[in-house]
């Protein structure tokens, strides 16, 4: 088959032919082709259907600004990427891609009826039409819109690829490796300091890749490029990153860049990540991001075969592909003539040049004449024809702003050039201010907000010599053969033939927004470009209006009779181009998603079938089911065994803080509500901590090991918060105190033993501590050894049974646990988890901060006035306890609840009401905070916060639950062993 290739043109590797598939058909290509160039080489211009009207669409561009040619890149299950621009997708042998947004096929699309009923789809159509009734949205509109107007389908399989991320640092980051960027890199890397040069394409060179006829310092452009890259590669301080797109520019020169690593590789068997996210911190940033050619807005400018002039240039010179056999040009700018002359020189027939301007320069006229190219000045293209590809254009002569005559010109490709738009996206991300350049009809960078400079076309500088000299920062003067870049005008809109309401001149190809839509939005009162954008959706597609924003802006400005600067510019936001979620996650998935902290005994629990639950960052054993047990059965057994004999529990997650210093006791006295100055070394006390607002913040048992030394424990979840708050007061409020805090949460493994046989179990293993009731009473702490290892042994109980908490250095935790578990067999020892721990403590009425309290609960509310040192002058939160609202009647207070039906376990969080007969909405007087089945008591128990609860003892409350309202009696919080006799088993 004859390909549309020019043998002597392009950089593709003709020695490496490959095959790929598009919509199920196999095509040939060369290594170095993009999917777009490869398809164009086969004359394939129709590659998609438009978003709203399902109009046939072809390639508009050759780079990342492409609005139309979005395809689905299919590498098999878990590797399907929709909405990939065919112009940036590198072809490799075996590549599979599909067109999108068409059903049943690209050439016969049911949705194309939208095009015939286009009157139904004006600007704001979605806003206006789908508003009422609300229920229709979910059931009717949304699914229909999705089916008809979607982009590519979202992948459904789990992503089969891996991703990575990496911080990087450099003194100079250069974004864009076109002539300006390379000149900048050459200059920057002569000095010491790390230089990173990134470019989104797989090959450095930017516009030079499309302009081989240029001569730089007497060297042909491509040779110059090769030489320069060799110099850069040889410099140790230079890092070159191709296929790397800078997607966002953030504070203090922090930029995100995504490198595509395997998307172009045939073989996926390596362990390489698909993409890597670089998080780059740069001393200085040089933006050399170039400019994007602007389309012209005229009737049927979206027909396949209508494309940017620069794109045809790239397809010819970089890929050796000719985009048509009879090519016409519609322009308002000199720069496109270089393209049409190159095409003519390549032997392609030129159908004519239609130039909006009344005059063009003598040089251009002479050059055109030499090539026998006809230039029609003062003329526009007022329409195109052709089914799936342009076959002719209508040229119209303009006089005094009106069409005076129209005729047809046959062509199979129409190039357009509406001037150039500097790529200021990244500069804009960095919050630099912009200024309007009337001659360019575009915004360019003004005052930077970071240490950044823009060079070359992105700075509004055009012409190769100027671009390169600016890139080099003036350090090198470049000589090039090219003439001036030329100039143009910015027409924005053109006169039309016939009824303007029937004209479809596209501004935003990707979102199917026409000139008429923008005018309508303005007529309907939307004067700000931000509003026009949202109403019409112009610039809101995945390309963020790279080709359309300036046209939309100028059409809107014209419609409101204001200068463009007064209409504004929509804000560019990261990412610069669409980015995969995988790249953003950057490998932080699976086990890397977040920290799962495990205690030293976690492995044992796992080996013994524990069911785990997350508690803060920790995973904790919740219960230890034996054969066939469900949670309730396991917890019942664990509770009864512990109360009758012995249970072993992993309490290692409790926060622990070592408080040491001459002022340790004074510090504790200020932080906690309880008095600490007179606590004897060797004793423990339950400590209650408030926020300065008087609400309970944390609690825990605190042991005094020496005059100047406390071992503080906190709740599991509260540990970091409590430590930070203590440090805050220590450093900022009381710097005069000589005291230090050290987190020892992970220094100690903590094994809690509870049950009447607890002492008997440990006795044989303990050295240096007299365990007798007299010498080691409840709420005492001793230091000694257990199994030959140092221990801090606490005699405390969170179950109401005789209890010990054995602290040993963490790496010994598992071995000690195993030793005790084996020795405990003779007491029928049971391991238990957090669920049994919760039941045992609830039976005793002990609160759990964060479950029974919620950050608005005072010590008085939970009946813990006893924990407040009455004689203390001050402690954190004290003053708040006498605030009027905290002393007021009617606060919720903690009570016990006993359901009338002992078998009913209330739902935690269920609301309480005083009278079930009242009308809805009922007056809620409280809620259940904890609720369990108590095997020990053979009935359900619950704790609840109830308005004035302390005065309601023995009265009835009601708890509506799904299906029924239950009755319960308010009780004291302590359900079991109210006198605490079980603590003192001898």
């Amino acid at each position: 088959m004859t390909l549309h290739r020019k043998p002597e043109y392009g950089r593709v590797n003709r020695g490496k032919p490959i095959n790929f598939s598009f919509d199920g058909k196999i095509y040939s290509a060369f290594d170095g082709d993009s999917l777009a160039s490869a398809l164009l080489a086969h004359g394939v211009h129709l590659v998609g259907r438009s978003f709203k009207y399902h109009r046939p669409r072809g390639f508009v561009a050759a780079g990342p600004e492409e609005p139309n040619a979005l395809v689905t890149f299919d590498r098999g299950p878990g590797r399907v990427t929709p909405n990939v621009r065919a112009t940036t997708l590198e072809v490799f042998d075996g590549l599979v891609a599909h067109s999108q947004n068409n059903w049943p096929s690209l050439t016969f699309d049911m949705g194309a009826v939208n095009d015939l009923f286009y009157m139904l789809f004006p600007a704001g159509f979605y806003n206006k039409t789908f508003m009422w009734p609300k229920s229709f949205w979910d059931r009717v509109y949304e699914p229909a819109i999705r089916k008809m107007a979607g982009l590519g389908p979202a992948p459904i399989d789990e992503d089969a690829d891996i991703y990575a991320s990496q911080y990087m640092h450099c003194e100079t980051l250069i974004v864009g490796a076109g002539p300006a960027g390379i000149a900048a890199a050459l200059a920057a890397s002569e000095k010491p300091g790390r230089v990173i040069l990134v470019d989104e394409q797989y090959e450095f060179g930017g516009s030079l890749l499309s302009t081989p006829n240029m001569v730089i310092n007497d060297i042909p452009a491509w040779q110059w490029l090769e030489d320069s890259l060799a110099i850069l590669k040889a410099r140790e301080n230079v890092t070159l990153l191709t296929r790397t797109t800078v997607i966002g520019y953030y504070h203090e020169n922090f930029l995100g860049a995504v490198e595509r690593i395997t998307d172009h590789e045939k073989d996926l068997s390596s362990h390489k990540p698909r993409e890597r996210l670089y998080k780059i911190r740069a001393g200085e940033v040089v933006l050399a991001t170039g400019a994007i050619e602007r389309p012209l807005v005229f009737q049927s400018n979206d027909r396949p075969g209508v494309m940017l002039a620069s794109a045809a240039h790239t397809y010819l010179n970089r890929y050796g592909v000719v985009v048509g056999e009879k090519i016409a040009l519609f322009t308002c700018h000199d720069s496109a003539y270089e393209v049409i002359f190159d095409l003519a020189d390549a032997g392609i027939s030129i159908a004519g040049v239609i130039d909006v301007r009344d005059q063009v320069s003598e040089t251009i006229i002479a050059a055109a004449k030499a090539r026998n190219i006809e230039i029609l000045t003062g003329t526009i293209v007022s329409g195109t024809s052709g089914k799936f590809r342009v076959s002719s254009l209508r040229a119209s002569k303009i006089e005094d702003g009106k069409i005076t005559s129209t005729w047809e010109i046959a062509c199979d490709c129409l190039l357009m050039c509406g001037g150039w738009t500097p790529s200021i996206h990244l500069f804009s991300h960095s919050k630099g201010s912009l200024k309007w350049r009337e001659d360019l009809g575009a915004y360019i960078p003004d005052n930077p907000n970071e240490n950044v400079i823009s060079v070359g076309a992105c700075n509004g500088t055009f012409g190769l010599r100027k671009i390169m000299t600016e890139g080099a920062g003036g350090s090198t003067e470049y000589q090039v053969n090219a003439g001036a870049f030329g100039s143009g005008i910015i027409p924005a809109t053109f006169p039309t033939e016939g009824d303007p309401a029937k004209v479809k001149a596209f501004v935003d190809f990707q979102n199917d927004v026409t000139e008429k839509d923008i005018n309508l939005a303005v007529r309907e009162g939307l004067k700000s470009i931000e509003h026009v954008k949202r109403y019409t959706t112009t610039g809101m597609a995945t390309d963020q209006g790279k080709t359309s924003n300036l046209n939309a802006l100028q059409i809107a400005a014209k419609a409101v009779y204001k200068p463009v600067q007064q209409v504004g510019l929509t804000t560019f936001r990261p990412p610069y181009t669409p980015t995969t979620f995988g790249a953003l996650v950057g490998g932080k998935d699976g086990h890397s998603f977040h920290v799962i902290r495990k205690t030293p005994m976690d492995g044992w629990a796992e080996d013994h079938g524990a069911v785990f639950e997350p508690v803060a960052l920790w995973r904790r054993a919740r219960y230890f089911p034996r054969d066939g047990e469900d949670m309730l059965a396991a917890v019942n057994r664990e509770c009864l065994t512990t109360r009758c004999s012995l249970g072993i529990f992993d309490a290692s997650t409790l926060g622990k803080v070592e408080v040491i210093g001459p002022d340790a006791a004074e510090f504790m006295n200020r932080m906690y509500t309880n008095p600490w100055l007179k606590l004897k070394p060797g004793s423990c006390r339950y400590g209650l901590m408030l926020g300065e607002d008087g609400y309970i913040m944390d609690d825990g048992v605190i042991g005094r090991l020496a005059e100047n030394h406390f071992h503080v424990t906190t709740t599991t979840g509260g540990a970091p918060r409590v430590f930070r708050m203590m440090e805050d007061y220590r450093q900022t409020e009381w710097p005069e105190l000589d005291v230090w805090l050290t987190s020892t949460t992970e220094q100690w493994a903590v094994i809690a033993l509870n049950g009447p046989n607890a002492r008997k179990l440990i006795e044989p293993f303990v050295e240096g501590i007299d365990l007798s009731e007299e010498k080691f009473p409840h709420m005492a702490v001793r230091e000694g050894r257990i199994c030959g290892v140092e221990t801090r042994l606490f005699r405390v109980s969170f179950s109401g049974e005789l209890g010990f908490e054995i602290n040993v250095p963490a790496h010994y935790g598992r071995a000690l646990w195993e030793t005790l578990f084996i020795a405990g067999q003779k007491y029928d020892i049971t391991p238990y988890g957090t669920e049994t721990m919760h039941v045992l403590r609830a039976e005793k009425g002990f609160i759990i901060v964060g479950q029974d309290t919620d950050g608005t609960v005072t010590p008085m509310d939970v009946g813990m006035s006893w924990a407040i040192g009455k004689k203390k002058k001050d402690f954190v939160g004290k003053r708040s306890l006498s605030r009027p609202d905290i002393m007021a009647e009617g606060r919720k207070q903690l009570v016990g609840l006993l359901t009338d039906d002992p078998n009913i376990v209330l739902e935690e969080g269920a609301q309480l009401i005083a009278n079930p007969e009242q009308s809805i909405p009922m007056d809620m007087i409280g809620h259940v905070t904890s609720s369990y089945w108590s095997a020990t008591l053979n009935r359900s128990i619950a704790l609840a916060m109830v308005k004035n609860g302390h005065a309601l003892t023995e009265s009835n409350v009601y708890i509506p639950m799904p299906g029924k309202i239950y009755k319960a009696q308010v009780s004291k919080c302590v359900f079991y062993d109210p006198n605490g006799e079980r603590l003192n088993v001898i």
Partner: protein
Amino acid sequence: MLSELKIDQAVELAPILTGEVDLLPVQTRYSLRVKPKERCAFIEASNIDLPAQIGKMSVQYDRVVLCIGPDEYILICSLAEREPLARKFEELMGKYIFSATDISHRNVSFILSGEQTTNMINVGCPLDLSLENFPVGKCTRTIFESAEIILFRMGKTKFQLETWRSFAPFIVGYFEKYCLQNRGK
């Protein structure tokens, strides 16, 4: 007296990490705080060299002292030194205003080495680890993804990384991914 219990740091290193990441055996570690105006006297009395500046470390015999806060030091040494150190601190307690807390089992340490080390650390740690900005002998507390670490440089391509016990597997997971992805690099 009963037999000693087995020590278990609960860290497993995949074979791919060989040569890049090594787990140190249990070390003696103290978190030391000294009232700044007593620093010199404390050094004299304890013979522990406390660096004068945040980010600096001292090396005495096999003992490393890191200064990671204005009055905060981490002392790392062999297990054998623990008893004598504990006795020394007990002696000095009351004479000087300081705090010494045993954190030997709180942390685990990794030695990271090889040409790719800084890149591997930069997978999760945002600091600039160039030799100019993080020279040999520099130490700091910082962050690796959501895990706090202490990092110090022992050579051009050799670092020690300390982290709390339960955060170690999370960090090692990143190292494994890195080594797997860069196999043969």
